[in-house]
């Protein structure tokens, strides 16, 4: 006992020799949560402050009203845009091209991704092309797409498809590759056909992967539609922004950006809702 005790006591004294005052007891940092209304009130307060400073700055000549416009002018333009302007035509044009691009691009891309399950050789042959297309900045193709598909809505949809297609393909293909080979084994041991394995195992397994790109794709589809409108279009919020910018109607730029953001938020919320519904269906 004594022999064992000796080094322990030595250690103790070494510890005790350290000056106690050098290391004050530290408490777990605690963060107090604000009530919900306080958060909201602060957020609204900040927004009002920014708008007020902007307006006052523009009136006092600190902010250049020609380049930045000012909230009162923007509000006036907003009113005119909706009462006398093409607001609803533009919103509907941008909305339709985004949704069509989103639906077609996501569906076709996912089906293409699923198709790789059918043949390893086919997947191996096609894959480099997909990766090249993925790496390519698709927006660089936009002028060409406009030339081919014309000034109407088709070219905007085509650009939105170009942006959403590949990411759906690659994500779905990742889902296909993640399928447990033992799952396939189980199906085949039950005497399943290729088609049964595809329908009852492969497609449902990939569904969560497909769902996971929906939110990204709605943003991409919107970007595609807007860029198409920038380049050449007769309608759409993108065209409004581009046109207002080139004629120095900065207030109208702000109005269109605001409307566009609202549209984006609404579509994003809708897709999030769709996602939660689908996820409930897949139970994962």
């Amino acid at each position, binding site marked *: 006992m004594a022999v064992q005790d000796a080094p322990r006591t030595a250690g103790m004294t070494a510890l005790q020799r350290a000056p106690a005052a050098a290391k004050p007891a530290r408490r777990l940092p605690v963060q107090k949560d604000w009530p919900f209304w306080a958060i909201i009130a602060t957020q609204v307060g900040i927004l009002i402050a920014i708008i007020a400073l902007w307006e006052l700055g523009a009136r006092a000549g600190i902010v250049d009203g020609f380049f930045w416009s000012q909230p009162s002018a923007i509000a006036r333009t907003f009113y005119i845009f909706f009462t006398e302007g093409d607001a609803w035509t533009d919103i509907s044009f941008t909305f339709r091209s985004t949704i069509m691009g989103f639906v077609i691009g996501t569906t076709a891309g996912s089906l293409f991704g699923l198709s790789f399950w059918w043949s390893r050789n086919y997947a191996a042959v096609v894959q480099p092309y997909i990766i090249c297309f993925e790496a390519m900045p698709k927006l660089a193709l936009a002028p060409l797409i406009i030339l081919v598909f014309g000034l109407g809505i088709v070219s905007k949809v085509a650009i939105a498809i170009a942006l959403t297609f590949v990411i759906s393909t690659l994500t779905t293909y990742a889902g296909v590759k993640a399928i*447990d080979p*033992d*799952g396939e*084994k*189980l*199906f*085949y*041991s*039950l*005497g*399943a056909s290729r088609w*049964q394995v595809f329908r*009852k*195992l492969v497609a*449902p397994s990939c*569904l969560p992967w497909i769902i996971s790109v929906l939110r990204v794709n709605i943003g991409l589809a919107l970007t595609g539609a807007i860029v198409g409108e920038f380049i050449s279009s007769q309608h759409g919020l993108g065209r409004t922004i581009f046109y207002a910018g080139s004629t120095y109607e900065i207030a109208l730029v702000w109005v269109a950006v605001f409307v566009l953001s609202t549209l984006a938020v609404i579509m994003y919320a809708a897709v999030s809702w769709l996602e939660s519904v689908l996820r409930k*269906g*897949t*139970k*994962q």
Partner: protein
Amino acid sequence: MPVKVHLERIGMAFATPNGMFRAVAPLDLRIETGRFVSLVGPSGCGKSTLFNIIAGLMQPTEGRVLIDGEDATGTIGRVGYMLQKDLLLPWRTVLDNVILGMEIQGKPLNEARERALPLLRKYGLSGFEYLYPNSLSGGMRQRAALLRTLLFDTDVILLDEPFGALDAQTKLQMQEWLMQLWSDFRKTVVFVTHDVEEAIYLSDEIHVMGTRPGRILETIPIAISRPRLRTTALSPEFLVIKERCMSLLSASGPALEAA
């Protein structure tokens, strides 16, 4: 008793960069109808390869698989095969998972469900029928997977370490449960395990396997009368068999691993 499954000079070899690798030496194995037969052996003795061959998921390089005297080499859907993992589909309820085999065989869903429901209730899954697998415990998931295998109406079922991942307590319960199922359904069962005691407790016959290449070292009949009690594991005849198995396994190479 008639032979249900006959592995006739079955052998398996793979081409590797260092030449041919022999996974299974040509071996002969006869499994009689209605018997519970275990394959026990260390990792890499070719148990899973044999299962894949019997299930038609792998083509043997030599020999034939005869089921009821008929050549079934390389044909799928002839035997029920339960893999180590439960492989329950997370987007289907327990009931719809269990009927997967019947569904694939083209049986109408309603009929399949009607057939499965009473069995789920009888064999300890009552109350879980309409739940999704993610809310089931490991033991319950194995039960569902086993019922799925049984409901795929084949005379032969292959069980590849079904209880390997369960805790000791659950494992014992599952063994009892399996015995009940087996005596109710009277299927021919081929069971793979690492656990010698489990094999002896459950089986009519044990084939002890060795590695490099995979082969059957010895076939040991278990003549202990049924139904067997837990205390059977302490009886002299049980211990003699256990000792024989252990010595065969330890002589054959790498020690037994925990499953």
